[in-house]
């Protein structure tokens, strides 16, 4: 082991992609972690520049002067810097960790401009953070620096009910906005599972989705305009509350850029009318294939449900044990389907969906009669991840996308992978849009199992890509999947994207070490147990 570590160190002083490649070979040889495809030999060393830049950034110490200036700017209550405070900003909702050097709490756009100016002056990395519920490490200061928490920038600035528009600060909690406009018959449509806690600024950064994005679209479909502060200190207004702003769609480019272009300080969103009626159906199947064929036929019949979720047999049993919703323990899959819209239309569509389920041998179809029953049916889905947490010390939620027609094959493959590594894998899908969330159970105290979990997760993602899908549907790339980007993008694609980042974030001060595999190469590769902040992924610090 000592030998491997020394080699790793040597190699990393050499830097660059070639070094990374060699490091990966060692990792594989020592079974430290399995990194698929990244180490293809023909890859050019496009990371050298990024490496030296980040190295320089790493070197920037949080000096006393910067802290002093930040306190001067924001007031002492708005700057955290003691270790015991910083320890609590090491994590987000993901399995990644890294400690920032300080945390600041702006309240206004001017505060953010001031913070950026100081970061620029001191060449300190800058990372935006909403509620820290993200699942790919987007809000984690991978290379230290200043975490800018938008939690106190949480005012709804304008609600224009007539035009169905709201203007908010980035720290407004997703469901708080919906609650604030519910009396107007409106809501903010993107509904990530964390909607009760996550912020709209975070949704914008990650282009968040959710169960109901099948019919309503993801965050980017609901953002009209942004006010952003670039790391150069420049304040920009992108898009407009009126549609079709002239020029390139910079708003569309910024949404989902994972905080690598600028800090968003104001967001103008579309509000969507609440449907007049919602019908929820829950169908129970004896085979996975019946369930997936049902999904296909619902589509074929021209119905676009508002949501179409699937739980596999194992997950159902885990959930049933906890919520006691009366799911049969011997079934293979359940589908949870929402249709919404005009009352008359939902009646017809619900009847049709029920018919499709029965044609495809659903053992039972339950239709909720009122809001209370609807909540009950959804309860199983909403508690799926928690239920996994109850039966296992740790679990790793993956996020992959496949063409909907490949669902049965993908499930079979996940079954094989589960057997290969002897790991329990539960499956929860947004079946309607082919977005899967395999839940891999593991015990973080068992290092081998932990490494197997990473390997299994990577194999699942590799299969998704092979099936024509993508490495992430809604969690983002962040620091979790940067190394998987070469699975779907060529070097040229990535280098073009990095050049685009360079326009807004020329020095790489903003959220360094995210999205692109160039962030590798700043130290040693190791796998850590989760309690330590560990990642079921290779990490360097």
């Amino acid at each position: 082991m000592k030998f491997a570590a020394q080699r790793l160190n040597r190699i990393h002083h050499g830097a660059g992609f070639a070094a990374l490649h060699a490091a990966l070979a060692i990792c594989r040889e020592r079974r430290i972690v399995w990194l698929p495809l990244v180490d293809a030999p023909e890859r050019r060393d496009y990371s050298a520049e990024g490496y030296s830049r980040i190295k320089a950034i790493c070197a920037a110490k949080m000096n006393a002067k910067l802290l002093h200036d930040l306190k001067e700017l924001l007031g002492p209550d708005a700057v955290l810097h003691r270790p015991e405070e910083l320890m609590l900003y090491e994590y987000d909702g993901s399995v990644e960790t890294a400690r920032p050097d300080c945390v600041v709490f702006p309240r206004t756009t001017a505060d953010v401009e001031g913070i950026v100016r100081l970061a620029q002056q001191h060449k300190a990395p800058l990372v935006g953070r909403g509620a820290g519920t993200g699942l790919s490490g987007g809000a984690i200061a991978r290379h230290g620096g200043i975490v800018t928490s938008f939690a106190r920038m949480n005012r709804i600035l304008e609600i224009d009910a007539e035009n169905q528009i709201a203007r908010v600060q980035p720290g407004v909690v997703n469901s708080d906005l919906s609650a604030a406009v519910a009396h107007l018959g409106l809501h903010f449509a993107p509904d990530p599972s964390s909607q009760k806690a996550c912020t709209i600024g975070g949704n914008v950064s990650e282009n968040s989705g959710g169960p109901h994005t099948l019919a309503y679209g993801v965050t980017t479909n609901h953002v009209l305009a942004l006010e952003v502060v670039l790391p150069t200190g420049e304040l920009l207004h992108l898009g407009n509350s009126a549609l079709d702003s002239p020029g390139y769609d910079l708003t569309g480019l910024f949404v989902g850029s994972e905080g690598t272009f600028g800090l968003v300080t104001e967001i103008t969103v579309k509000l969507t009318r609440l449907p007049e009626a919602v019908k929820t159906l829950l169908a129970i199947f004896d085979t996975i294939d019946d369930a997936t064929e049902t999904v296909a036929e619902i589509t074929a019949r021209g119905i676009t449900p508002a949501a179409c979720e699937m739980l596999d047999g194992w997950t159902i049993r885990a959930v049933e044990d906890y919520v006691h919703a009366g799911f049969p323990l011997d079934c293979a899959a359940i589908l949870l389907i929402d249709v919404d819209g005009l009352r008359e239309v939902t009646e017809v569509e619900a009847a049709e969906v029920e018919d499709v389920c029965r044609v495809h041998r659903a053992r039972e179809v339950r239709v909720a009669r009122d809001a209370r029953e609807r909540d009950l049916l959804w309860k199983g889905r909403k508690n799926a991840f928690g239920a996994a947490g109850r039966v296992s010390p740790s679990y790793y939620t993956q996020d992959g996308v496949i063409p909907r027609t490949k669902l049965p094959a993908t499930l079979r493959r996940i079954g094989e992978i589960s057997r290969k590594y002897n790991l329990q894998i539960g499956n929860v899908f947004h079946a309607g849009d082919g977005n899967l969330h395999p839940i891999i159970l593991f015990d973080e105290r068992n290092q081998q199992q932990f490494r197997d979990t990473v390997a299994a997760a990577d194999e699942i993602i590799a299969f998704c890509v092979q099936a024509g899908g993508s490495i992430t549907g809604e969690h983002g790339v962040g620091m979790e999947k940067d190394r998987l980007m070469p699975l779907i993008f060529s070097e040229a694609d990535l280098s073009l994207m990095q050049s685009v980042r360079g326009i807004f974030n020329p020095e790489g001060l903003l959220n360094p070490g995210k999205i692109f595999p160039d962030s590798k190469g700043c130290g040693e590769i190791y796998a850590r147990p989760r309690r330590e902040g560990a990642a079921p992924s290779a990490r360097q610090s």
Partner: protein
Amino acid sequence: MTLVASSTATRLADISGSLNVIHDPEQLAAYEIDRMLPAAAVKPGSRDEISEVVKFCAAEKLAVVPCGARSNLSMGAPLARYDVALDLTRLDHILAYDPGDLTLSVEPGIPLQRLAGVLAGHRQFLPLAVPFLNRATVGGTIAAGVHSPLRQAYGTARDFLLGLEFITGQGAHAKSGGLVVKNVAGYDLHKLMIGAMGTLGVITKLNFRTFPALSATRVFTASFTSAENALSLRQRAVQSPLRLLTMDILSPGAVEVLAGQVAARFEAGPAPVDRLPPGKWAFHATFPTAGTATARYERELKHMAEESGCDWCEICGDDRNPASFGRLREFVPIVLESSPATVVVKMSVRPSKLGGILASVADVAQKNDVRWAAAVGGLGVSYFSLLPSARDEQARLSVEKICEKVLADCARLSGNATIPWCPSEWKSSMKIWGPERADFEQMRKLKNVFDPVGILAPGRFAGGI
């Protein structure tokens, strides 16, 4: 033919074969843009050929304009240079279509109508009911950023374009997005390409989400003495639970144009717009039919129209609405043919401000004695077309005055305004892309990343890009 042109043509012929290179000036006339002719036109047959062409042009600093059916080439600012027309019509294949997954991958040169035929076979469609539908290609439609009346229900290409492959200004292959409906890996570069008019790259592949085909639809039309009343129906409809497929408000001029002979040439057959009383504002909406919901749509639309003070309203069934919908879709081509010097201003304001802007444009058009027609989308995006009776200096001055006022009004109401269509010789004196915006600077930087040599349709885009 100049020496340069001839050597260009030779090199292009090396890449794509001489049969696919046009350098005869007579044939090149078809590639005219704003009275400029290229030295050559090339029809590459593959992505690699496109890449070669672009690399060659980059090396020689030759300005390239990618094009498809060329129906939207008159849009945008005048080109700074124009050397090579890059005709993509040979790349017209469906690369992948998985009806069960509702996803589609196509080459840019495929005509929308042919594509629609294939999708219809699986009872699906793409909600790209855009102008020039009878000839437009998919690539051209996306690059031009034109939208469809179905935007009300389905959004724009931004909402259903899943990914793109393209060739950058240096001839490199690049892609963004994917072929799945949900995907957050990498930056959404493909969103930049929508409406970029070929200034960032040459599109080689487009991935779309498809939609289940619409069942039968019906058209509701209502007539109003004032724009305010028509707009109040819009507001009521938006706040009702009804989910309309299209919703437009037509000025008296627009009603006249859409019921006229030019319109009939585009979409023959009886159309509900023919029956609208002349000289009045109209509200035109399409809604889906589905069991008992149909009656409810009819009842509530009529009721809301009456509440909004309509003079007259009517619901038409399947037999008539294709023509009506078609004419609405072709509003721009129709107005372009309805005057010798049509100018179309695209205005966008928050819907509540439509009343103000419409009153103002009506007033200024009338004062300057220019005939006008406005089609106002339910989401606040309007096509305000000026139809002067002659293409002369006097007309130009009047139109310019009107446009200035409209652009200023839109800016005052924090809206957007551009002039996508305008006679070539008038372009230089018009603010084609509206007033300079602060973010144009970022766009110029973007352009520089995608096309550092500046050979892709130079000068055509916003901010002088």
